């Protein structure tokens, strides 16, 4: 057999963009934006950012109760995570084009603090973010694990590790910790264990669940969240093997539709089954589906609801009226050639009080704070509320400003 000629590797480790990777250097233009826009004058909170928790898997597994599962994960180092965390087919790094994916592992950090803290602080300081709500990455698919006991064990171990190694160590970082809704009894125990931990500002449902969100088995979870005053986040993911998405042949297609579709499914069930009426004090935040899906769903559900109110008897007002009272993270905000549509969207969702800035850093479709700050139809106060004030209220945060901002203020 004649092998084809060795093709060029356009993203080799030798490329300077990867070989000399450094987060602060990569984001130097973000820092310029932060200075030009005087972010030092106000608080910025990023409500959806990520780390790669599997890089710390051996540490996380030390917090796992089940010795057999712990052994499964540790027996083959990081390779062992294949048995613990579902793997996603996809090309988040655009075949190496987004250099922070291949470059991240080469970035050097000091021995202390924890590597994740150093890397997180580097991008936060560059973007002008003071506090960040930190989420896992591969574990966003954990709810699809076929073994519910593995989901619960990983969730508990990760939450413990996150609280002890990251959140306890850095008050600029917080999290809505993983909630294994597939196992309601365990989810309740998780709420009890973590609700009062430092830096925990809520609980997170990730991706697709084995039962619909309105399943009767879940009601005690929502009651408990309401009792604790803890918001529930719905972090969307794509699932290429989902039957409705499996005909899509390109990653761009499944990514564009999959994230929105995930939250459309949960939101429709949440509203049409009257969850906001059952749990009026439970605040929900809908994460990482952009914004365009919200006006679409408001219009679709309102139109059908007015003709079929008997299908949704728990509702006391239109679906959009409930949706307008919920919270939304901003990224990935649809920004190309649609300024008028974006302005209408902001009005429809009461963005000035309900929208919270998110970067999704370090993922490929991350948004800088300037995506909010540069919108011409927002006033200064609205910009500051969306970039930080709304998160401060929702999470009852004591704002912790970044050191560089405090120093810049002193310097005048």
């Amino acid at each position, binding site marked *: 057999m004649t092998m084809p000629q060795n*093709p*060029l590797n*356009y*993203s080799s480790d030798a*490329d*300077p*963009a990867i070989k000399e990777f450094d987060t602060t250097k*990569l984001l*130097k*233009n*973000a820092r*310029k*934006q932060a200075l030009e826009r005087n972010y030092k004058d106000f608080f910025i909170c990023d409500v959806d950012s990520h780390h790669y928790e599997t890089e710390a898997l051996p540490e996380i597994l030390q917090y796992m109760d089940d010795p057999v599962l712990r052994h499964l994960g540790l027996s083959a180092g990081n390779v062992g995570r294949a048995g613990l965390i579902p793997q996603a087919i996809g090309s988040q790094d*655009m075949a*190496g*084009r*987004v*250099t*922070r994916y291949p470059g991240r592992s080469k970035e050097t950090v000091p021995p202390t603090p924890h590597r994740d803290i150093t890397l997180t602080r580097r991008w936060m300081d560059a973007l002008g973010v003071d506090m960040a709500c930190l989420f896992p990455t591969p574990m966003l698919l954990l709810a699809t694990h076929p073994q519910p006991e593995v989901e619960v064990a990983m969730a508990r171990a990760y939450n413990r590790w996150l609280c002890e190694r990251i959140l306890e160590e850095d008050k600029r970082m917080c999290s809505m910790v993983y909630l294994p809704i597939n196992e309601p009894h365990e989810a309740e125990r998780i709420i009890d264990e973590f609700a009062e931990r430092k830096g925990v500002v809520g609980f997170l449902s990730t991706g697709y669940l084995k039962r619909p969100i309105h399943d009767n088995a879940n009601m005690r979870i929502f009651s408990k969240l309401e009792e604790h005053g803890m918001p529930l986040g719905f972090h969307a993911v794509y699932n290429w093997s989902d039957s409705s998405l499996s005909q899509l042949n390109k990653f761009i297609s499944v990514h564009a539709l999959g994230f929105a579709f995930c939250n459309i499914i949960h939101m429709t069930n949440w509203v049409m089954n009257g969850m906001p009426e059952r749990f009026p004090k439970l605040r929900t935040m809908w994460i990482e589906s952009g914004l365009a899906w919200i006006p679409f769903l408001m219009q679709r559900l309102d139109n059908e609801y007015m003709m079929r109110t008997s299908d949704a008897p728990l509702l006391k007002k239109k679906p959009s009226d409930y949706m307008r009272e919920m919270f939304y993270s901003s990224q990935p905000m649809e920004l*190309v050639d649609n300024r008028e549509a974006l302005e209408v969207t902001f009005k429809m969702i009461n963005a000035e009080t309900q929208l919270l800035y998110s970067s999704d850093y370090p993922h*490929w*479709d*991350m*948004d*800088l704070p*300037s*995506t909010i700050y540069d919108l011409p139809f927002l006033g200064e106060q609205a910009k500051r509320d969306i970039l930080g004030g709304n998160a401060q209220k929702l999470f009852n945060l004591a704002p912790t400003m970044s050191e560089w901002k405090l120093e810049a203020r002193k310097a005048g």
Partner: protein
Amino acid sequence: MPEKLLCATADLSDTTAKIFEIEGVEIGVIRHNDTVVAYRNICPHQGGPVCEGLKMPRVCDELDEQKRSVRQSFDTTEMHFVCPWHGWEFKIETGEAIGDPKIRLSRYKVIERDAQIYVEV
């Protein structure tokens, strides 16, 4: 237009853009197809350092005579800057965004004289 000296011609590479800072503005300069091009190192999308990302060729879809999809290939005659922040791609030759040619990188006129590279700013 005032000219600014950047470097000796021999210092330029055709594989990696060299970054210069002139009055607080970064300019990426690269040799491309026997000419030298210079662009502001700011992506028009969200401001990423567009000249510092990978250089990648255009990706093409190949169809057969019945317009059936056959395979994908690289067209190495059309090289792109890829912004490392989000992957927006721009033709190195013209600075046009691949997704919308109305969007372009900010270009500087380059003068090659006496084995030296200058830009007009």
